[in-house]
C-alpha cells in the first residue's frame, strides 16, 4: 500500500494548539475538548476559544470522564472534577500520596486508587474502599451499574462496592495495568506489562490470551457496538473480533493502517466502524474497518501521539502528543 502523503482534504481543517505540557488524556465535555496535561493544567478548547485551568499542583497521572465532567487524578493527592464551563472542584484530597487511577461511573459515581487501595464514591450514599494485595494498575466501571474491575498483579478483581461479598478474582500471572469492559459487559480486558493483552469471558472467567505484539499495549478501545477491540502496540492497528460469544479465541485479528512506526494511541469512532489512530511520529489517520481505507488527519511532526478523543456524536476528534502539541478537527 502507498505511504500516506503529508496532506489530505482534511489536514487543512485541523486546528493546531500548543498546550505546553504532555497530553495525558483528552475528553469531550459537550462541544468542548478538555485536554489534561502532565504539568497539571487542563485546557478547554472549542472553536477558536481556549480556556486554561490550573487543576493540579503537580502532574496529572490519570484521566476519566463522562458527558458532564472530566475527572483527573494527580500526584498532588487530589481528584478534581472539571466541567465544560471551566468550573473545577476538588472531590478528594490526601496530601503526600499519588492518585494513580481514576474512573468515572454512571450517575455521578466515581472511583480512584491510591497504591493498593481502591476507593468508590457514589453520588449519594456511603463511600467505600477496599485494599487489594498489590497496587491497583487499572480501574474501570462496568458499562451499567456500579461494579468495578480492578487490575493488579496476578489478575483482576470484580468488585461490587455495595456488596458485602468479597470480589471475584480473575487469575492470570503477571502485572496487569490498563483495564476495560466490553460495551455489553461480557468481557474484561487488561493490558499487561508484557507485550500482550489478557481477557476474561464472563461470567465463567474463561481466559483469553491476546499476544504477538512487538511492544507493550498502552491504548485500547472498543469499536461501535463492541464489534472489535482496537489496540496500539504494533506498527498497524490490531483489531480483535468480539462479535462471537467466544470473543477473539481461535481467530486472527484484523490488521489495518500499517506504517514503519508504531501505533501509540487508538480511539474508536462512537458510531461508525472507523478507528482514529495515532503513531509514534505524531501522524494521525482514520481507518475504515470494512475496507481499510485511510484518511490522513495530521501530518507527522515527531512527537508520539499520547491521547485521542472523539466527541460523543463523532463529529469532532481531539489529538494530543507527548510534546504538548494538540489538534482539534471538526468534520
Amino acid at each position, binding site marked *: 500500500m502507498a505511504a500516506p502523503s503529508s496532506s489530505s482534504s482534511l489536514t487543512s481543517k485541523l486546528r493546531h494548539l500548543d498546550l505546553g505540557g*504532555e497530553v*495525558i488524556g483528552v475528553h469531550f465535555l459537550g462541544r468542548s475538548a478538555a485536554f489534561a496535561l*502532565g504539568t497539571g493544567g487542563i485546557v478547554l478548547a472549542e472553536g477558536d476559544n481556549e480556556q486554561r485551568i490550573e487543576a493540579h499542583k*503537580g*502532574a*496529572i*497521572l490519570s484521566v476519566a470522564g463522562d458527558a458532564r465532567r472530566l475527572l483527573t487524578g494527580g*500526584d498532588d493527592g487530589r481528584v478534581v472534577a472539571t466541567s465544560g464551563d471551566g468550573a473545577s472542584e476538588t472531590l478528594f484530597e490526601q496530601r*503526600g*500520596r*499519588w492518585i*494513580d487511577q481514576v474512573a468515572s461511573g454512571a450517575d455521578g459515581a466515581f472511583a480512584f486508587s491510591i*497504591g*493498593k487501595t481502591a476507593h468508590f464514591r457514589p453520588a449519594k450514599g456511603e463511600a467505600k474502599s477496599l485494599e487489594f494485595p*498489590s*497496587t491497583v*494498575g487499572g480501574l474501570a466501571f462496568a458499562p451499567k451499574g456500579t461494579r468495578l474491575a480492578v487490575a493488579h*498483579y496476578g489478575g483482576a478483581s470484580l468488585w461490587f462496592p455495595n456488596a458485602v461479598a468479597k470480589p471475584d478474582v480473575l487469575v492470570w*500471572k*503477571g*502485572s496487569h495495568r490498563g483495564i476495560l469492559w466490553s460495551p455489553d459487559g461480557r468481557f474484561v480486558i487488561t493490558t*499487561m*506489562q*508484557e507485550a*500482550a493483552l489478557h481477557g476474561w469471558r464472563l461470567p465463567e472467567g474463561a481466559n483469553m490470551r491476546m499476544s504477538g505484539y512487538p*511492544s*507493550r499495549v498502552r491504548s485500547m478501545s472498543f469499536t461501535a457496538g463492541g464489534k472489535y477491540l482496537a489496540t496500539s502496540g504494533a506498527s498497524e492497528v490490531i483489531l480483535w473480533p468480539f462479535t462471537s460469544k467466544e470473543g477473539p479465541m481461535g481467530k486472527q485479528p484484523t490488521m489495518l493502517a500499517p506504517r514503519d512506526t508504531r501505533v501509540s494511541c487508538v480511539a474508536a469512532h462512537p458510531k461508525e466502524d472507523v478507528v482514529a489512530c495515532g503513531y509514534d511520529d505524531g501522524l494521525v489517520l482514520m481507518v475504515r474497518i470494512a475496507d481499510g481505507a485511510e484518511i490522513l488527519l495530521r501530518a507527522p511532526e515527531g512527537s508520539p501521539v499520547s491521547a485521542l478523543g472523539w466527541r460523543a456524536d463523532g463529529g469532532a476528534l481531539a489529538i494530543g502528543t507527548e510534546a504538548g502539541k494538540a489538534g482539534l478537527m471538526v468534520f
Partner: protein
Amino acid sequence: MPDAQAQTKIPVTVLTGYLGAGKTTLLNRILSEPHGKKFAVVVNEFGEIGIDNDLVVGADEEVFEMNNGCICCTVRGDLIRIIDGLLRRKGDFDGIIVETTGLADPAPVAQTFFVDETVGAKTALDAVVTVADAKWLKDRLKDAPEAKNQIAFADVILLNKTDLVSDTELKDVEMRIRAINPFARIHRTQKSDIAIDKVLGQGAFDLDRITAIDPDFLEGGHKHFHDEDMQSFSFASDKPLDPDKFFPWIQELTQREGPNILRSKGILAFKDDPDRFVFQGVHMILDGDHQRPWRADEAKTSRIVFIGRKLDRAALEKGFLSCVA
C-alpha cells in the same frame, strides 16, 4: 541506541545498604547539600527523610516475575509506575534516586531499567551505590545473604563508619569486599560524608563508560581472600574472538546460569572489527554495543568478568577461550 537519545535520558541511582549502614544519612546529604541539582527520590519508608521535598515518593517494593519464561527476571512493578508518573514532571528534576530497603535484593531494581520499554527509553541506570558498615559488614556477610548481594551488585561502595574500626580491621573488611566484588569503586567515609560527584553521575551502566577492567585484580589481589559463597572470575584473551561463537555462548550461558550470575561485564575484541564491543548484564539480561574504535596504543585484549554463586570456573574459562576466532 543512538547517542543523542542517551544524552537526554534521566540518570537513576540505586541506593542500597544493609539496615543501619548509613543509607538515609547519605540520602539526606545528597538532598540538602548546595549542589544546585534537584532529585526525585523513591523511598520505601516515609519520615526518615528530613527534607521537605514534593518529589519524594513512597514505594511498596512490589517485585514480580515477568511472564517471559525467565525465572530470575523479576522487576519492581511499583517502580515502573512511579517512574512513569515522575516522567510527567520531566524538567522538574535532574536525576532519580531509588532507595531500597535494607533487606532488598538489588537485582529486580536494576532489571526494571532493562525490561520496561518506557523506563528504559527515558531513563538510564547510572550506578548501584551500596553503603556498607565498616564495623558490622563482616558479620553481616556471614549471616545476611542480602548484605552480600548488595556488595556483589555495587558499582560504588561507601565503606562507612570507618572511625569505628582500626586500620587493620578496615583493611580486612576491604579485602572481604574485594573478594566478593573486585570491580566496584570503594570510598572510605564517616557519617556517609562524600562529595556527591563520587556517588552520582557515575555512568557505571553506561556502555560508553566501561573503560577498563583492571587486569591487576584479575591476576592477584583477590586471591588472598576468598569468599566461601560469592565468586568473581575474570578471563582474558589476546587473540580476537569470533562473534559467531561468542554470542551463542554467552546467550546460552546466561539463560542456563542466569540465576547464579549476579553481574557480568566484558570488553571484547572481535576478529576484523575495529571497534571495542562492551557488554554488561544482570542475571539473564544482557546489554551490549560497539563502543569506540580500539586505539593504536591499546592492547586488543578481550576481558570478561562474572560475579556469582555456584559457578564452574573451569567451564567458564574453557567456554570463553573457545570463542577465540
